[in-house]
C-alpha cells in the first residue's frame, strides 16, 4: 500500500511542478506567449526534469551498488570472524544474513549470522535515511535551480528534447542490456558448473543422470560427477524429437503455403489463413496437454494392436504435436517468400507450356529456395527451444536411441526438471541446467544467424 501511495503522491507532486513552471513562464512575459522562446509547456517539463531526474538517477545508482557496499560494511564489522569463513561459503553466509533481515531464514543460521543480520539492518536503515535525505536535497536544489532559470530567453525546448532523446536511447539500450544480461548470466553460472565438471566430459559424455550426482558442502568436483553429466543422450533426444517435428511440419507447412499462394480461391484463403493463425496462437501448454492426454495414449494403444511396444511418453507423440505447432510458422514464412517471387517468372513458365505444379516445382521453389531454407532453419530453432509440449509429453530419463517409439528427454525438459525441484541454488545439478541453457542459446543463435545470412547472401534481386 505504501508503495502505491508514494508513487501516486510523487506523480501528483510532479504534475503540480509542471503547472507551476508553466505558470511562472507565462508570468515572466505577462501572459504574452510570443515573447517566450519555447511554449510554456516546455518550461513546465524543464522544471520537472530538473527536480526529478537527479533524484531518480541517485536512487537507481544506489539500487545497483548498495548490495556491494553493504556486503563490504558487514564484512568489515564482523572482522576476523568473517575472514575465518572459507571463500566459497561467504556468499551463502551473506545471503543467509540478508534473508534473516527479511524475516524468513534461508540457509544455516548461527550467532555469526545473527550478528551479520543486525549489521545489515542497522546499515540499511542508516544508508536508507542518508540516501533519501540526499535525494530530497537534490530534488529541492534542482527545483530551485530550474525555477531561477525560467526566463523568456531560456531554450527550454532544446533542453527537454535533448533529455527525451537520451531517454529514448536508454530505452533502446535496454534490449542490448537484456542480451548482455542473458549471455553474462548464462556464462557466469556455466563457468561455475564447468569448474565442477569438465567441459569435454559434459559435451561428449554418454551418460546423463544428474539425480545421482554427488553433492558435498565443499563443492569438490569428483570423478563421479564427470560421469553423470554427459549431455550427448540429451542432445540426441532433442535431435530425434526435432527431426520428427520437422518431418511433419516441413512438408505440410510448405504445401499449405504453396496451395494458399498459387491454387486457393479467395474464399479458401479467407478460411484457411485464420485457421493457421489460430493454430499459431494456441498456447503450447494446451498442445502439451493434448499430446499427453490424447495423442500419446492413442499411439500406445494402436502400437499394441500392431504388436509394437510404444512407450506412453514416446518421442513420436511429442514430435508429431510439436510439428503441428510449427506448421503455421513454416507456412507463413514460406508464404512470404513464395509471394515475393515475381509473377513474370510464373508467366514465363506458363508461356512455355508448363502445368502449375511444374512451374512451382521447377521455377518458383528454386527461386524461393534460400527463403524456404532459412524458414526451415528458424523452424528447427523454434522446435529445439520448445518446452511445454515436451515437458508434458516426453520422458525424463535420458535415453540414447533413434527409435521414435521410445521415451527420450530433451534439453528443455532437463532444464525445467533440474530447476523446479527443491535443490539448493549452487549445487552442480542446478548449475548443469545453466550449462544446458547456454548450449541451447548458442545453438538457436547460430541457427538464426545462419538463416539470416542465407537470406542475405542468396536472395535474388528481381529488378
Amino acid at each position, binding site marked *: 500500500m505504501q508503495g502505491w501511495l508514494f508513487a501516486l503522491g510523487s506523480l501528483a507532486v510532479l504534475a503540480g511542478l509542471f503547472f507551476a513552471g508553466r505558470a511562472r513562464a507565462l508570468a515572466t512575459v505577462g501572459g504574452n506567449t510570443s515573447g517566450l522562446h519555447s511554449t510554456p509547456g516546455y518550461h513546465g517539463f524543464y522544471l520537472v526534469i530538473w527536480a526529478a531526474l537527479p533524484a531518480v538517477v541517485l536512487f537507481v545508482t544506489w539500487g545497483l551498488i548498495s548490495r556491494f557496499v553493504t556486503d563490504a560494511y558487514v564484512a568489515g564489522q564482523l572482522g576476523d570472524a568473517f575472514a575465518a569463513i572459507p571463500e566459497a561459503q561467504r556468499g551463502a553466509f551473506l545471503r543467509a544474513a*540478508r*534473508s534473516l533481515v527479511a524475516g524468513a531464514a534461508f540457509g544455516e543460521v548461527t550467532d555469526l549470522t545473527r550478528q551479520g543480520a543486525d549489521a545489515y539492518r542497522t546499515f540499511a536503515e542508516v544508508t536508507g535515511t542518508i540516501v533519501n535525505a540526499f535525494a530530497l536535497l537534490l530534488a529541492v536544489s534542482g527545483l530551485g535551480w530550474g525555477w531561477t532559470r525560467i526566463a523568456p530567453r531560456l531554450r527550454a525546448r532544446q533542453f527537454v*528534447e535533448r533529455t527525451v*532523446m537520451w531517454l*529514448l*536511447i536508454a*530505452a*533502446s539500450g*535496454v*534490449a*542490448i542490456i*537484456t*542480451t548482455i*544480461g*542473458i549471455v553474462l*548470466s*548464462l556464462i557466469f553460472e556455466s563457468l561455475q558448473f564447468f569448474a565442477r565438471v569438465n567441459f569435454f566430459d559434459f559435451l561428449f559424455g554418454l551418460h546423463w543422470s544428474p539425480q545421482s550426482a554427488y553433492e558435498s558442502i565443499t563443492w569438490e568436483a569428483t570423478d563421479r560427477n564427470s560421469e553423470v553429466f554427459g549431455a550427448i543422450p540429451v542432445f540426441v533426444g532433442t535431435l530425434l524429437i526435432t527431426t520428427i517435428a520437422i518431418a511433419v511440419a516441413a512438408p505440410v*507447412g*510448405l*504445401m*499449405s503455403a504453396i*496451395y494458399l499462394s498459387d*491454387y486457393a480461391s479467395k474464399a479458401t484463403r479467407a478460411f484457411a489463413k485464420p*485457421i493457421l493463425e*489460430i*493454430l499459431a*496462437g*494456441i*498456447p*503450447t*501448454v*494446451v498442445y*502439451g*496437454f493434448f499430446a499427453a492426454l*490424447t495423442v500419446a495414449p492413442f499411439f500406445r494403444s494402436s502400437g499394441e494392436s500392431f504388436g509394437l511396444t510404444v512407450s506412453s511418453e514416446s518421442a513420436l507423440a511429442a514430435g508429431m504435436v510439436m510439428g*503441428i505447432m510449427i*506448421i503455421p510458422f513454416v507456412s507463413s514464412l514460406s508464404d512470404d517468400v513464395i509471394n515475393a517471387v515475381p509473377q513474370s517468372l510464373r508467366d514465363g513458365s506458363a508461356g512455355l507450356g508448363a*502445368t*502449375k*505444379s*511444374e512451374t512451382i516445382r521447377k521455377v518458383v521453389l528454386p527461386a524461393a529456395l534460400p527463403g524456404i531454407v532459412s524458414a526451415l532453419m528458424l523452424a528447427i*530453432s*523454434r522446435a529445439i527451444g520448445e*518446452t*511445454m509440449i515436451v*515437458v508434458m509429453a516426453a520422458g525424463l530419463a535420458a535415453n540414447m536411441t533413434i527409435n521414435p517409439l521410445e521415451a527420450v528427454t530433451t534439453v*528443455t525438459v532437463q*532444464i*525445467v526438471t533440474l*530447476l*523446479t525441484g527443491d535443490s539448493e*541454488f549452487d549445487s552442480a545439478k542446478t548449475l548443469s541446467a*545453466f550449462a544446458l*541453457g547456454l548450449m*541451447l*542459446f548458442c545453438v*538457436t*543463435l547460430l541457427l*538464426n544467424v545462419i538463416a*539470416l545470412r542465407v537470406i542475405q547472401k542468396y536472395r535474388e534481386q528481381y529488378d
Partner: protein
Amino acid sequence: MTEIAADPMPQSAIHTSESARARLAARYRTERVFRFLGQAAIGVSVAFLALLLTTVVIQGVPAFTYNFASLDFDLSSERLGGPDEISKADFDGIVRDAIRGEFPQVTGRTPRRLLGGLISSGAPVLLRERLVGDPSLVGSSGRVSVPVSDFADLYLKGQITGSEYRDFTSPIVLEASGDGSTYTVTADQAVFGDVLELVKQRLLADAAALRQRAEGQARSQARIQSDIVGFESRLSAAEDAAESAGLTARLEQARANLDSVTAEIARLEADAADREARAGSAVSGEPMTDEDPSLLIYAADGVIRATHITATTVEGEAMLPVADPGSLVGNGWRLRILDVPESNRKFSDQEIVWTDTLVDRGEVASAFNWIFFSKGASREPEMAGVWGAVVGSTLTLVVTLALSFPLGVAAAIYLQEFAPKNRITTLIEVNINNLAAVPSIVFGLLGLAVFLNFFEFDRSAPYVGGMVLGLMTLPTIIIASRVSLGAVPPSIREAALGIGASRLQTVVHHVLPLALPGILTGTIIGMARALGETAPLLMIGMVAFIVDIPGSFSDPATVLPVQIFMWADFPEAAFQHRTSAAIIVLLGFLIVMNALAVIMRWRFERRW
C-alpha cells in the same frame, strides 16, 4: 513440291503420338496429385484444430456445472456458539449429522463413513465461510447448498458408469432372511437370464486368463527340466566330491522347484476347468463378484443388490430397506444393470443408490460451478478453482505491459526516426531480431539468475514474472512499432517539418498518433502471447500451490497456463475435466484479446 507434300509436318508427332498423349496425361495427373496434396496439407491443419478444440470442449464443459446438495443443517446457536465463536464451531460434525439425517437407518462405522464421503470435504469450510460472513444465518432454518464429493458429481454426470433399466410388471416374491440382512427375490420367469450370461462370460474370461498363466508356468517348467538334465549330466561327469556335492544340492533344489511348478500348473488348470464347467452348465446359479456388472433390483421402495443369481432367483443385500417383504402383484418393479463392474470404478453401488435417492428427493441438483470461478487451487478437485490463477495472470500482465510498452515504443521511435545509420544502430537491430527468436525458457533462466539470485526479489511474485515476460515481449513490440512507424508516409513528416516543428515534435505530434493503431495491435498480440507463456514462469517459481487469491504484486501467485500445467499432472478424473475447463477459460481470454486486435486493425488502421 512433292518432297514437301510427302513429308507432312513431322514435328506434330511429338504432340499427337500415343506416347505424347500418355506423357501429357501423366503430367496432368501429377498436377492433380500435387493440388490434392496441397488441399490435404490444409486439411491436416484444419482437422487437427477441430480435434483439439472438440476434445478440450467435450472434456471441459462438464466442469462448468456442479451438483450441489441442499441439506438441512443444524445451525442453531447451541451448536455454533456466540458470534465470536462461530469460526471455531465443529462444522465437520454439523455436515456429518446433516447427511446422516438423510439416511437414519445407516448404522455401523464403515457405512457411516461411506455415507459421509458423499459430501465434499470442503463443505464444512464453505459453511464456515458463509456463517462467519453472515452471522444472521445462525438459528435460521432452511437448507443450505453444499457441493457433493467429486465422485458423486462424476457419477451424476454419467462419467462413472452407464446403466440399463428394465421395467417389469410380472410378480416377484421378496423374502427376507432370518436377520433381515439378505433378501431372496423369486420370479416366475427367467428374467435374470441375460445377467447370468454376463457372469458366465466373465467366468470364461477368467478361465482364459488362468490358462495363460498356466502356459507361462509351463514354460518355466520346461526350463527347469532342461536345467535338471544339465545338472544330471554334469554330475555324472563330476570329478571331485566337493563339486558333486554342490551339484547334488542344486539338483535337489531344481527338483523341488519342478514339483512346486507342476503343482501350480495343475492347480491353475483345475481352476480354469472349474470355471469353464460352471460357465457351460445351463441352469446352475452363480455368485456375483465385484468383477461382474452390478445388478440392482428396485422393488417396494427398497433396493437389493444381487450377490447370487440364477435364471429365476436372486439373493442379495439391501442397499435401501424394503418396505415389507411379500408378494408383489400389480406393483411394478425394475431391474438395473450397471455396466462397469464395481472393482473398476471408484464409486460403489451403495453410494450410487444413496446419491440417486437424494436426487429423487429433490435435494441434489446441478448448478453453475461458482466454486471453479471464485476459488484458488486445492487438493480436492471439487474445491479447486481458476480464480487465483486468473488474478495472478492479470497482475503479471499489468506489470508486463507497464514495462514493455513504454520501453518498446520509445526504443522503436529512436531506432526508426532518429538513429543514424551506423554500426552501433545495426548492432542494436540485429540484437533485437535475435532476442525475438530466443527460446522463452532462456528468459526464464535470465530471470532466475539475475532477478532471483542476484537481486533476491521474491519468488513466485507477479512483479518478477511481469519483468521476465516484459523482457520477452519487448522485441516483439519494438518490431511491430517500427513497422507501424515506417508505414507512415514521409509526406507527413515533411509537412510537419515544413511548418517549423522540431524532429521530436514531428514524431510525437504527427507520426506517432497515426502509427498508434498498428502499435496497439502489435502490443495486444504481444500480450496475448505473454498470457500463454509457461516456461519462463516455471523457472522463477510461479509453480507453487497457491490457495489464497493474491492481493498485491508481491503476494505469491500463479498464472493460468501454469495452473493448467500443474493440474494436468493430477490423476483424478475430476481434475482432467477442470484442466480442460481452465483451457477453455484461457482460450476465451485469448480469443477476446485477438478479436480486439483484429477489430482495432480493421477499424483504425489506415492504408496509405
